């Protein structure tokens, strides 16, 4: 009865009407009133459950999108332009990433990719508002290869809301340094495009490493950007010829690097080195780093399991189930049959990999796992 005071207010009535659609309220928009009202007749379903049978994008229960264009960037990378369905929030910040789910052989696979499009992107080529991600095929990466080579326009994908703290503030700082390598350029591309669109390209230096000139994603666009905004410098470092980019050379190349706010994204080794360098210079607060979860097969067994809500961790071997791991760390996990049949213990794997002990199937970040028959395959975090 705690809600009584506002039960008679307009807000109270609105909340009551929306209640059945409460699960999607935050992104459902004004339609939720109608959704909630109709859902009382369609319960336990939402009207969206029927509507999406007519058009997959007409559902706000799950964010969806349709691939409207696949553009090759380099030999092993491509840009996917996606038109999101109902409920997608276009007010993301440049540099954020989205989760994307794609159907391969009956199974949905989830991965996170940086958005390369600027927020509120309205490209006349595609009509309504769209978003874009750029994917680089990894030699071991099953899904990235599929996205680069196997996806065609028209494919319906699932989307998770944009997130991430690796973002460009608005307005951007007067002096900026971007340090990227490989597909680490993707979040920075979103930042550059946003600056360009808002016409606030300040003093920006972008140092990008790639193996050869052909491997440089968005090369033409970077040149065009420089032509339009002299304040922008694109420094491409080809590792095939000159080897790894040495942070020490910054002093000669751009001696004012200490005055710049820096955003860095690339392989883990490079980021570690950059962090060390900035730490030694006492400039940690000027450095923003994004670490990509490297898409690879879970080759390791066991690891450190983190329980998201309690923050507890425990290190286990590859034969210990996640349920046992939780219990040994004193975390209350749901459980039932303890043999993988009742689905009582299912929780979301928020990062890392796990392996189904019964058949060796790998489970990735974003997937749901049965903790009683799954073990850690490397470090992982459970959303419980």
């Amino acid at each position, binding site marked *: 009865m705690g809600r009584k005071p506002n039960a008679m207010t307009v807000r109270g009535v609105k909340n009551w009407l929306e209640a059945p659609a409460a699960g999607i309220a935050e992104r459902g928009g004004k339609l939720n009133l109608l959704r909630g009202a109709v859902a*009382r007749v369609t319960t336990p379903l939402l009207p969206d459950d029927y509507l999406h049978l007519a058009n997959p994008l007409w559902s706000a229960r799950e964010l969806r999108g349709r691939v409207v264009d696949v553009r090759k960037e380099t030999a092993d990378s491509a840009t996917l332009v996606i038109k999101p369905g109902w409920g997608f929030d276009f007010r993301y910040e440049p540099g954020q990433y989205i989760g994307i789910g794609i159907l391969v052989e009956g199974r949905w696979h989830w991965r996170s990719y940086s958005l390369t499009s600027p927020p509120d992107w309205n490209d006349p080529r595609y009509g309504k508002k769209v978003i874009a991600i750029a994917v680089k095929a990894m030699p071991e990466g099953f899904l990235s290869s599929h996205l680069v080579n196997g996806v065609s326009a028209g494919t319906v994908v699932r989307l998770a809301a944009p997130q991430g703290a690796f973002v460009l503030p608005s307005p951007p700082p007067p002096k900026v340094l971007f340090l990227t390598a490989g597909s680490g350029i993707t979040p920075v591309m979103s930042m550059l495009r946003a600056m360009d669109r808002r016409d606030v390209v300040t003093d920006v230096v972008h140092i990008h490493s790639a193996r050869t000139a052909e491997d440089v994603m968005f090369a033409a666009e970077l040149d065009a950007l420089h032509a339009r905004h002299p304040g922008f410098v694109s420094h491409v470092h080809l590792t095939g010829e000159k080897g790894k980019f040495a942070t020490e050379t910054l002093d000669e190349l751009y001696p004012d690097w200490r005055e710049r706010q820096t955003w860095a994204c690339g392989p883990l080794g490079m980021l570690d080195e950059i962090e060390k360098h900035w730490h030694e210079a006492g400039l940690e607060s000027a450095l923003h780093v994004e670490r990509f979860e490297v898409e690879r097969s879970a080759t390791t067994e066991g690891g450190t399991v983190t329980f998201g809500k309690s923050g507890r961790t425990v290190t286990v071997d590859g034969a210990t189930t996640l349920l046992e791991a939780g219990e040994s760390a004193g975390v209350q996990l749901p459980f039932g049959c303890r043999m993988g049949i009742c689905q009582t213990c299912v929780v979301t794997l928020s990062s890392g990999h796990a392996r189904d002990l019964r058949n060796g199937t790998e489970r990735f970040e974003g997937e749901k796992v049965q903790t009683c028959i799954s073990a850690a395959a490397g470090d992982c975090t459970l959303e419980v």
Partner: protein
Amino acid sequence: MAITDIRAFAHLAAEDVETLGQELDTLRRSVEQSLGERDARYIRRTIAAQRALELAARAVLFGSRNRWAWMTGTAMLSVAKIIENMELGHNISHGQWDWMNDPEIHSTNWEWDMTGPSAQWRRAHNYSHHTYTNVLGKDEDLGFGILRMTRDEPWRPVHLVQPVANIVLAAAFEWGIALHDWTIEKELTGVSRYQVFSEPNKAFARKITRQVAKDFLLYPAVTGPAFLSTLKANATANLIRNLWAYAVIFCGHFPDGAEKFTEEQLEGETPGEWYLRQMLGSANFSAGPVMGFMSGNLSYQIEHHLFPDLPSNRYPEVAVGVRGLCEKYDLPYTTGSLGKQYLLAFRTIHKLALPDRFLRRTADDAPETSSERKFAGVTLHPGSENRPWSIDPATGKRRGLRWAMHEAKIALRAKAEHEKEVLRGAERTLRAKARQEQDLLRRARHALRKSHTSYSA
């Protein structure tokens, strides 16, 4: 007393049970590995077809004041509700389609069109029932707390109303399930019955309010002047769905041959023994593709209990493998027509309404429950000291449980025959003795009459 030692009952050695378990694991893996686009399409199409059928039914019911529209709409809605419950709700909540990693077709999210909340049902059904299948005192689906479905359970006077309780349960099956799951949910989560605003109570109240309001108030109201006829149509569709779900469940668990187990059997149960318990504790009924689909493929109850989380559309092919293993290990594979299986369950319901003194058999050799003691003194194991089974010298086939059951049947018949024979012999002796005595009496009377004549002479 029901089965306390499943190995002895099944006539299998420990290593046989283990190999059987491994063979079932292999069967499971081969299905898991072949899951793909075809299966995903199957469930997506089933969902789309069910939604379309339901929408069409609701649309037709706008004209429910017309008799034909009423009948068509009701029939369509009944079928839609049956598919929603059996092939969708039941199977998706079992996690059969979790492998697709589709958040909308996932056991943790699915809510079904029945009175009880899916979450409560999942706990009671997936956990309590499927883990402790047919274990007395652990599996509360055994009679759903209302019916006495095995003579392992002591008779109480309330069981006299069983024939009526059965009809009520069948007609209101969704309510029976909902109340049953609600109780178990509270029990398992340790919520006191006096805690009125507990989470299980709230979830239950919310769900039943929505369900009842939908079918008995809102949909009828939407059809305006056809309010009453739509209400009747919705009630009828719910009733038909309830009766069908009831029949399918009863045919899967209560025909003769679906064995019951004791808690002793659970202690230290191996994975192989778990499989064995599922196999011996369930029963199938024969169904073609259409009836199989309408039963959510629970016509393959044995396969479902062995692999509750394998997609239902694969049960027909799994059944081929399971039958093969039953053949190999000489285990029974309990099946029959829907009518036959239901009549067997029906017989048990009515028989067990009576106290035990009216029943001839005991819990060790009854049709609905037996135990390893059933074979005491009736099975022969020529030449097998360390194995409970033997090889038939003529066919080279294993003589296991099926053979033992066959023998037990013959032995029991022979025993009955023998008892009858003894009875007949005793009768003969008695009759002879009676004749003798009569004879003696006659002679005595004769002698008496003679002496009487001589006196008078």
